[in-house]
């Protein structure tokens, strides 16, 4: 068969084909629409939550004394005569616990990720990865229970302090809780560094450790930063474990052994017993908005940073 015959024969059929919408075409369109709906639903949820918050709070968001809420530290919402709604101490509580948690989680997760990604191989690596993922799946109430029943007496005994529910307890619990997911993300970031970089550096006489410190970690910088930010986001948003392990008393902590109270725990503990629309309710609402904005910013920047890794 000659070439011209073939192409002219095809051309006749093709003229028809170009105009006919066949089953493939409809399936393709349907899948496109379906995927679009799924994708857009996440956005719809966020917008929905945001609308709910603004609608609920619309009446008082504008007339609330925001300056006082954020700059005073006295939270006495159910005081009959003179209730006070300063959340500074709550912010300090959340921040101190999250800060300590990161101090615990960053070395653990970075070390773990380096070991799993750079040194472990074969079976060890697979087993470790599964273990890390299992750890990440432990419900936070279980961690809270550990804080309450194991860490609490341990801290009282070791440091000879009256209460063991404090910044130290919650920080360690939260750190251990955030570490697995941070390890997992950090490990992904290290694995994304191509082997040819390692080989090139090793060929120059760099030791394994020098390769990691001088080439792999700098190359994975963004992914590692993303892992830390996700951990921070987790710390800010965590509720149950900190409710159980902090001691839940309003305090600007002066030491690791002071009990504190977290923003999230306050909402969880008090929202059920406040009258809708009351001043107390409004204050809790303000906390919610604050948390929403903070975690949104943290997660967004973590996401953008990790994304930057893939494109750069």
């Amino acid at each position: 068969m000659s070439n011209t015959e073939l192409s002219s024969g095809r051309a006749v059929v093709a003229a028809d084909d170009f105009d006919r919408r066949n089953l493939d075409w409809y399936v393709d369109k349907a899948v496109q629409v379906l995927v679009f709906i799924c994708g857009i639903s996440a956005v719809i949820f966020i917008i929905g939550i945001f609308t709910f918050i603004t609608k609920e709070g619309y009446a008082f968001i504008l007339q609330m004394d925001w300056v006082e809420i954020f700059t005073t530290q006295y939270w006495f919402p159910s005081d009959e005569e003179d209730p006070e709604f300063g959340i500074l101490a709550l912010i300090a509580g959340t921040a101190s616990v999250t800060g300590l948690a990161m101090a615990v989680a960053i070395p653990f997760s970075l070390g773990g990720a380096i070991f799993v990604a750079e040194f472990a191989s074969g079976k060890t690596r697979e087993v470790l990865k599964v273990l890390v993922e299992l750890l990440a799946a432990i419900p936070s109430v279980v961690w809270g229970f550990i804080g309450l029943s194991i860490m609490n007496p341990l801290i009282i005994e070791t440091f000879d302090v009256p209460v063991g529910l404090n910044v130290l307890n919650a920080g360690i619990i939260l750190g251990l809780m955030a570490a697995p997911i941070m390890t997992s993300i950090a490990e992904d970031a290290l694995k994304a560094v191509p082997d040819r970089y390692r080989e090139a550096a090793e060929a120059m006489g760099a030791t394994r450790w020098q390769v990691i410190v001088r080439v792999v970690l700098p190359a994975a910088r963004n992914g590692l930063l993303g892992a830390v930010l996700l951990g921070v986001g987790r710390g800010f948003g965590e509720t149950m474990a900190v409710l159980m392990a902090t001691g839940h008393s309003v305090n600007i902590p002066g030491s690791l052994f002071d009990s504190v109270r977290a923003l999230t725990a306050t909402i969880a503990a008090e929202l059920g017993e406040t009258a809708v629309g009351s001043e107390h309710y409004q204050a809790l609402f303000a906390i919610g908005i604050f948390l929403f904005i903070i975690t949104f910013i943290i997660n967004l920047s973590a996401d953008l940073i990790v994304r930057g890794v893939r494109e750069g």
Partner: protein
Amino acid sequence: MTMPTPVAQEAKVKLAVQGLSIRYGHESALRDVSLQIHEHEIFGVIGPANSGKTSFLKTINRMDVFNPNMHVEGAILFDGRDVRQWRNVYALRSRIGVVFPLPVGLPLSVYDNVALSPRLHGGQSQADLDVIVERCLTRAALWDEVKDRLDALGSMLSGGQQQRLTIARALSQDPDLLMLDEFSIAVDPVTTMRIEDVLKELRKEITIILVTNLVQQARRLADRTAFFLQGECVEIGVTEDLFTGAVQDRRTRDYVEGKFG
């Protein structure tokens, strides 16, 4: 002034390979190769794809340890000492510069790419480093193009620039043996010529193994050349002899004349 003559029978032996065989699993990649590379010579290795050239280089600086599947037999004496007897492979590797076929610009700044090796061993002042970086980049014919953006990421340079960066990095080790594996694959002809000139200069100071699939490049540069074919070292001789017909094996002549490849 003793300029080494190309034949250099009396020259000092830098690298002596004795009965070297390489296997990947059960597949043989190199069989019973014995050769000697003299100090201050450019030793060419030519041969078609799959002839075992890259595998040969990997055993010299012990890159074979990365591949548990790779089995090496025989001896490679570097300055008279078997490379597999070196307790500290890092010390061995730091004396051997390697340039891979595909450029590897590390995701560090151009400056840090070149300063990496000196920093590994420490002791240099910032001023020393500046001097080393400029000298190595100049030698690799890259300085003029990057001197205004030493902060740019090495991995963001063009392919040809990254290859010259790789060469500069290998030179920054101040190696006594430089191994180049098809370095010109990603480099334009003009730059290739400039780098070839640099290699001719370097020969006065160091020993160079030049693996190339361009037989004319071997002819231009190499004092002596080995011809590898399917894991066998078919011929070793003064380069010019390979081209003028003074060869023992007719497969060598067929190859340099482009009859197969």
